[in-house]
């Protein structure tokens, strides 16, 4: 069992690494939970517009106490604020935007990801009934899909598998997997390990991964 402090550290590393994928002018959708934290780490000098699938472009920071508005929430149902240039629209318009390829980057969590870039994150048969929300549309429609997740389960079992075992959210949709251990790109020749966390080797990452990784020609240490 991991200590809570350790979990926070892992998450910070993942969030910081993905924040460095942001580019000026990007329209970005962040999933519920850990991906939402990326909004707090936008690199200086870059302007990014965050989309919320419940019908908003231009999500701002959390409001100050007393300014919260029940009509102004993000997809995680948290109270948020506007930015200059915020717009609102219906759910049908929101998903037209998503499916239509207008969102540059979608970051979301996963329970399992496999060699082909398929992912599972919405149900465990017989155990958990939550629903896919907007995840299936996001992975099918966003121009780039990044998975943000811890490398293994709490019990230490791999989550990057040869083949997902849980019901899928999307088939061959993931472009990049970022964990506290590694930065991995999904390619035609398999999962390419491009970066490892400081203090780790490619072998350490491989041991925590079910599928055989292709070690990148320019393997780097992850900047965190």
């Amino acid at each position: 069992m991991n200590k809570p402090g350790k979990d926070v550290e892992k998450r910070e590393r993942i969030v910081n690494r993905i924040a460095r994928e942001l580019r000026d002018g990007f329209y970005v959708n962040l999933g519920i939970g850990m991906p939402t934290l990326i909004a707090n780490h936008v690199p200086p000098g870059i302007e990014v517009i965050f989309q919320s699938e419940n019908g908003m472009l231009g999500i701002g920071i959390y409001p100050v106490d007393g300014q919260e508005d029940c009509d102004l929430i993000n997809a995680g149902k948290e109270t948020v604020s506007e930015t200059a240039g915020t717009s609102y629209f219906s759910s049908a318009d929101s998903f037209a935007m998503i499916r239509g390829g207008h969102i540059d980057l979608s970051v979301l969590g996963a329970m399992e990801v496999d060699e082909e870039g398929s992912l599972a994150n919405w149900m465990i048969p017989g155990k958990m009934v939550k629903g896919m929300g907007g995840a299936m549309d996001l992975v099918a429609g966003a121009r780039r899909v990044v998975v943000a997740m811890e490398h293994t389960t709490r019990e230490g079992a791999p989550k990057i598998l040869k083949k997902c075992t849980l019901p899928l959210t999307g088939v061959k949709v993931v472009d990049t997997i970022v964990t506290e251990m590694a930065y991995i790109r999904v390619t035609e020749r398999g999962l390419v390990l491009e970066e490892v966390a400081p203090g780790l080797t490619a072998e350490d990452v491989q041991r925590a991964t079910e599928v055989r990784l292709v070690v990148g020609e320019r393997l780097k240490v992850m900047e965190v």
Partner: protein
Amino acid sequence: MNKVVASADEAIRDVGDGSVIMLGGFGLCGIPENLIRALAKKGSKNLTTISNNAGVDGLGVGLLLSAGQIRRHIGTYVGDNKLLESMVLAGKIQLDLVPQGTFSERIRAAGAGIPAFFTPTGVGTMVANGKETREFDGRTYVMERALPSDFAFVKAWKGDRMGNLVYRKTARNFNPLMATAAKVTIAEVEQLVEVGELDGDSIHTPSVYVKRIFQGDLYERRIEKRTVRKVSG
């Protein structure tokens, strides 16, 4: 033209057992609170509810759920409702989970005279099981059918006596599409105004879609997850 009814009770007078009802709202944001309370009071049974979420325990659609009024629920995310999760796992209610974009588009299509459409969402997953697929320009799409209903319960910020509606911020969500997709659309509003008071360029739902309208008596306006930041200094 005057579509105003006196109360939520009067607005739902013809909702019978077995009705298929759409309810606007995302989480607790933009839900038709007054209509839900009236329906819980009326006690109609064997309902099919179409709503993104299922409320929370004891509020929103959760109110109808705990009263045992729902036979089937169609939505996209029910993770905030433990009662529903347990009822589904125990086989007491039928739950159809639909990807949110497909859910939205099926409702939009129903209101727009489109019986079906092809979407890339869900291809190769459980949600495409048994459905027709087709390739367009080298990519596979799955056919999804329009989703109509008997009634739509929508909530707007302002509305006029003719039924024109204006929503506020993210409380808009599914309300405008649901307003188009039902045989009978009932709108509850926070502020009921005279015809001509709303700016025609700013109307989100044109009056043609709305059959009945009333000003809600009580808005609890509950916030599901209150997140705030500290003021610096």
